[in-house]
């Protein structure tokens, strides 16, 4: 190997790792790396805000399964990444953030644009590094990628002082073996324990009212085939978190859709009355369980997860299986097939009961032909895209409607900030997703509050001619907060009114994007189809919707599924249910 600059070593490792796109914004401490990027064979996307860059890298990673890469300078550049890194951390998104740092001899002196970035990001990264010697640079970068993409994935940050990017060093790219050997304490556990898998199979055979509860871990492990096979073999109905939407076709009769706070009536009832809950790559988040003491109170719980720290964290489980979801499910299916499976017939009564629940309270809303209902917009987007688009969302009511009223059918189809709930995520994530999956239509379903948090990066999408569609569910409110104020704070609408807002059509046009608007239900499908025809720039559609529509059903925070609000007047079910005969 010839002698190379630290900055060139960075590019070499990126190429070795198969990186084809990076996102970021330069500054003093990372100029050397940007200099090396100038003629590197990589797509280099200049964002307008580092937070947006980090969500782009995140969207790229979620859509493709590859590691997303984001670059920023020291100090404010790096601190602007914090929200994006935390967002990726909460949802286990593989990401490598490379930040410039002040030169080594200035560290700790309050130098210009100095911040302790390794300190700041320690609790929101899977791991992070400060490079102190150019000899370690290549190995650390390789370790960063390896840690980000293996085990339970997550963001890894590498902070590189400017002098190290400038030094010249005669180096060799470490091999994957070197990397593994250099991390003796890091050994993700992929194989499930066979005796636990046997126990799980026994419980499945005996269960009368089983439910599969599938989370993002199943998507990360690429287990959609296995999930499908398991459901069809065992006829166990399946509910997902919003992180696992699309892992299993939502039009399938055994699909119960989402559970939890804004879960469907039938998903929540099924979980509540279940006698066996099989949690697959899910982590019993409080938005899912509600009041933990009354979460599936009758059920035995099997929990398959790659992260031992997720198991029995919020709820004590009966059969924990630590391992990669895909591998464990393959073994579980094999185990189940060892004995005749006539027990499956006993499921039909349970399935009938669930069908009753589905009929009784399907996902629905009050339709209107005068005013645009936000749910209607989502349904029309679903129809116009034939269920094939990648959907991203901000955070709020529009996010929940996007989860409920678009029916997903392939994994990595619905990208949203589930764990951190980051407003401003949806649009930049769509830009990243489109770059990763150029053949897919990508639509950001955004709120008027969320979108404006990263509105500046509309210009990035214009500059690179990225044809994403922003479907703005414009209710002139921080709608989700307004809903909580209406339900739990006596309708005292404190700091939620966004009636003062830009003309979003003109705003889009001034950025060089296409701006469209619909104010009547009859205009909705027309503008969607118009937007879908544009393929050389972003389109923003301003859907002026019913301002005070609520997201229902809803289990109020910390309450039991029994206390679900179904519609403004209806509450959940009584304590006793009958299996239909």
């Amino acid at each position: 190997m010839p002698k190379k600059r630290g900055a060139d070593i960075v590019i070499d490792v990126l190429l070795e790792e198969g990186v084809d796109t990076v996102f970021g914004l330069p500054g003093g401490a990372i100029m050397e790396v940007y200099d090396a990027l100038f003629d590197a064979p990589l797509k280099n996307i200049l964002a307008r805000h580092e937070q947006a860059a980090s969500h782009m890298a995140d969207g790229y990673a979620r859509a493709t399964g590859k590691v997303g890469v984001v670059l920023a300078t020291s100090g404010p550049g790096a601190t602007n990444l914090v929200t994006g890194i935390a967002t990726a951390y909460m949802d286990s998104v593989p990401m490598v953030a490379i930040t410039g740092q002040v030169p080594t001899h200035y560290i700790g002196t309050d130098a210009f644009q100095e911040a302790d970035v390794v300190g700041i990001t320690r609790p929101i990264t899977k791991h992070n590094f400060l490079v102190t010697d150019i000899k370690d640079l290549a190995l650390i970068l390789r370790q960063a990628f390896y840690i980000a993409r293996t085990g339970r994935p997550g963001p890894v940050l590498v902070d590189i002082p400017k002098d190290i990017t400038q030094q010249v060093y005669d180096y060799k790219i470490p091999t994957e073996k070197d990397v593994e050997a250099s991390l003796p304490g890091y050994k993700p556990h992929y194989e499930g324990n066979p005796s636990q898998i046997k126990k799980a199979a026994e419980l499945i055979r005996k269960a009368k009212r089983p439910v599969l509860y599938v989370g993002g871990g199943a998507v990360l492990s690429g287990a959609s085939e296995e999930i499908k096979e398991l459901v069809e073999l065992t006829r166990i109905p399946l509910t997902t978190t919003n992180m696992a939407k699309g892992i299993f076709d939502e039009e399938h009769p055994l699909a119960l859709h989402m559970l939890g706070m804004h879960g469907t009536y039938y998903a929540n009832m099924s979980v509540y009355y279940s006698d066996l809950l099989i949690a697959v790559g899910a982590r019993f988040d409080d938005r899912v369980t509600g009041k933990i003491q009354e979460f599936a109170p009758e059920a035995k719980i099997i929990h398959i997860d790659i992260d031992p720290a997720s198991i029995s964290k919020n709820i004590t489980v009966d059969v924990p299986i630590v391992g990669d979801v895909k591998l464990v499910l393959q073994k579980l299916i094999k185990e189940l097939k060892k004995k005749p499976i006539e027990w499956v017939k006993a499921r039909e009564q349970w399935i009938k009961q669930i069908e009753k629940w589905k009929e009784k309270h399907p996902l629905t809303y009050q339709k209107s032909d005068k005013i645009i209902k936000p749910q209607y917009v989502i349904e029309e987007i679903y129809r116009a895209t034939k269920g094939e688009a990648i959907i991203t969302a901000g955070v709020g009511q529009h996010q929940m409607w996007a989860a409920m009223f678009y029916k997903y059918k392939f994994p990595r189809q619905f990208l949203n900030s589930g764990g951190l709930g980051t407003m401003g995520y949806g649009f930049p994530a769509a830009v990243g997703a489109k770059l990763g999956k150029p053949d897919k239509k990508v639509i950001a379903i955004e709120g008027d509050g969320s979108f404006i948090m990263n509105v500046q990066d509309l210009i990035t999408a214009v500059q690179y001619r990225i044809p994403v569609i922003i479907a703005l569910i414009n209710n002139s409110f921080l709608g989700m907060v307004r809903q909580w104020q209406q339900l739990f704070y006596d309708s005292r609408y404190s700091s939620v009114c966004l009636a003062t807002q830009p003309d979003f059509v003109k705003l889009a046009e001034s950025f060089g994007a296409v701006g469209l608007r619909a104010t009547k239900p009859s205009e909705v499908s027309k503008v969607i189809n118009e937007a879908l025809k544009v393929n050389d720039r972003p389109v923003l559609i301003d859907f002026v919707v019913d301002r005070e529509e609520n997201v229902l059903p809803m289990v109020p925070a910390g309450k039991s599924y029994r206390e679900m609000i179904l519609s403004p007047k209806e509450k959940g079910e009584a304590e006793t249910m009958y299996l239909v005969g």
Partner: protein
Amino acid sequence: MGEEIKVLKVREEKKTEVRKHIIIVRAQHNFGVLTRITSLFAGRGYNIESLSVGKTNEPNVARITIVVNGDERIIEQIIKQLRKLIETLRVRDITNQPHIERELALIKVHAGTDSERNEIMRLVDIFRARIVDVYTDTYTIEITGDTEKIGAFIDLIRPFGLKDIARTGIVAITRESATRKLSYKEQQTD
């Protein structure tokens, strides 16, 4: 109508108690590794009672003994997260295993008059401590033992006028007889 499903049950979570835990961590001795370890405790509002770090027989591997008071369930969770850290090699809670604990203290005490000196020397003798430095009116005493022994000694010596105490915090190691009984597997996963 078919079979009735009654749901009256409430999920019971095991009650757990707060008590002292001794946790042994072996980790790559990189800079920052201690911060990663201690912040897992701090993040839950747990104050580490004592922490001691030392080199081991392996190069670049540190052995860290942590003593902390905490709820069983939360400690279990912290241990899982300690194991998850990239740089930790092995993490064990040895509280329930037969083990040996030792701590060393250096104590400066006022020793002005002859009778005070005699009395202090007598206590030093009984506790198998040592006087390691002498000044006109001050003795510096070195003592090792478990936490109770050192505590008892300090209580007895306190009336003479304590000037300063430096304690190392506990180091602990399991008894070989106990580890031998565990199978190889258990040793790996405990």
